């Protein structure tokens, strides 16, 4: 082995190609990308043009975009999304905790819930709640206080229960995944400072699980916005139903559906932005372990 020549900073023994060390480093230009972009935009423009020129009366779209029936439907859709998601997330967290509980009774109960409500069509669940009176004509504590079931099970109530309980079963699975993703070391550390199982979940595990939970729950919230339309069968007057009621009378089917789509896109855009903000909020503190090969400073964690 030949002893190495110690390279003096500045340049090694005049080997000619090495001179290029001080040449300009060029950023790549990516002409291909610009051509691709142009092609994509052209194709897109063609589709838009076809739609604009197709048998669609855009004036009708404009006219109904802010019709009062559409706007009140929009409010109902958003309100139901909020309430049903709140119920769904609450139930999802509850049943995720139950399904991971050391207590087998709770565990089996939670498994049954997830299986049953993921397994039956939402339409059936809605109809069962709405028509609960077929099975229980009156509810309450017999003799003390009682109501007619149909008075309690308003369309709002039945929709809320149907959507919320159904959502809870899906959310439970997502939350379970989130809890499993949190480094078990966090739970151990919480135990060593004397926290009980539930406090640990509430204060340490769930806040960290949020990072994993938010993206799929975001998907589900966005689905929920549109799922509310299933509730039109039990006369919950959300936006799609109100759009339909209008086209039943004026036969402008595609136009009214486009009106609904525009509002849905608006709501989904707001929700997507909200999701990104939430994601950023819960990314605080970053991952438990620094990225591999990262400096101990963790500047890039």
């Amino acid at each position: 082995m030949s002893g190495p020549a110690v390279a003096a900073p500045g340049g090694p023994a005049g080997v000619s190609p090495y001179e290029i060390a001080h040449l300009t480093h060029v950023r790549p230009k990516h002409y291909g990308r610009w051509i691709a972009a142009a092609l994509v935009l052209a194709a897109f423009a063609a589709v838009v043009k076809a739609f604009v020129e197709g048998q669609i009366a855009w004036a009708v779209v404009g006219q109904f975009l802010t019709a009062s029936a559409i706007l009140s439907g929009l409010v109902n859709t958003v309100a139901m999304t909020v309430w049903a998601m709140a119920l769904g997330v609450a139930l999802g967290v509850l049943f995720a905790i139950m399904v991971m509980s050391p207590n087998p009774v709770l565990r089996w109960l939670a498994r049954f819930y997830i299986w049953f409500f993921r397994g039956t069509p939402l339409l059936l669940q809605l109809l069962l709640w709405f028509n609960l009176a077929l099975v229980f004509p009156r509810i309450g504590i017999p003799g003390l206080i009682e109501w007619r079931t149909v008075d309690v099970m308003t369309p709002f109530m039945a929709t809320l229960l149907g959507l919320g309980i159904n959502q809870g079963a899906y959310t439970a699975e997502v939350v379970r995944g989130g809890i499993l993703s949190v480094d078990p070391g966090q739970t151990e550390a919480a135990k060593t400072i004397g926290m009980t199982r539930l406090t640990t979940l509430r204060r340490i595990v769930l806040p960290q699980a949020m990072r994993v939970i938010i993206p799929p729950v975001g998907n589900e919230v966005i689905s929920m916005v549109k799922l509310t339309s299933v509730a039109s069968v039990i006369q919950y007057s959300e936006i799609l139903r109100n759009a339909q009621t209008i086209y039943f009378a004026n036969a402008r089917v595609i136009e009214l559906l486009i009106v609904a789509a525009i509002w849905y896109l608006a709501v989904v855009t707001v929700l997507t932005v909200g999701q990104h903000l939430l994601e950023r909020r819960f990314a605080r503190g970053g991952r438990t372990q620094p990225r591999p090969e990262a400096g101990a400073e963790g500047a890039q964690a």
Partner: protein
Amino acid sequence: AAQTAPDRIKQAGKLVIATFPNYAPITYKDPGSNTLTGFDIDLGEAIAKTLGVKAEWQEIAFAQMLPSLQTGRVDMVMAGMSDLPTRREVADFVDYMTSGAQFYTITALANEIKSPADLCGKSVGASRSTNWPQQIGDWSKANCEGKGKPAITVVGTEGSVDARTQLKTQRLQAAVQGNETLPYFQKLEPNTYVPLGKAFTQSLVGIPFTKAEGGLRDAVKGALEKLQADGTYDQLLAKYGLQDNALKPISINKGE
């Protein structure tokens, strides 16, 4: 005495009626004002007034109407519902109007299809929640297969609106809907639809009641008879162009 409502209704001061505003001009929402409109709505209001109570309308999907009647959510239904033997297993019908299934096509196909006889071998659609698809099949058996011609392909569409859209894309060559509703759409979309012949069936439209509500059923029948006697009934038919669909006298459970 026949037109007095049962005590329960009188105490409540209201008659809860289910409707689903997807069936212009019988029951629909005026797109401009977003209010319930139609022959059934006006007639329901008149019945309630005759009985001395208010009408309270609940919008319920067609398939949910009979269950809602059974659970007591509503007292009766006015939504252009046909009085059919299968439905009479759960309800009694007070019949108040006739309805006929009517073939029609679009102007673009009017040269090719001039009469119902030209429909053999073609696709014909109708709302699947009605008994029209079955009636088209029966008609085809009698008038196409029976005469050695190819059968009609019957398509059950999601509703009448859907049938009209499929007609426009020419997925269907003709469609069927009630003869009480077709004129409304001819007026709404001029030069689009062409009726083919006359209605090929005749059925009765009625108001269903649960078997337990015999009292209310008779009271409503009485009210309808009174409205026919004083001319209100004819006046309302005329308002919506439905003179051909008048049913006199009012009957109970007479639909086929």
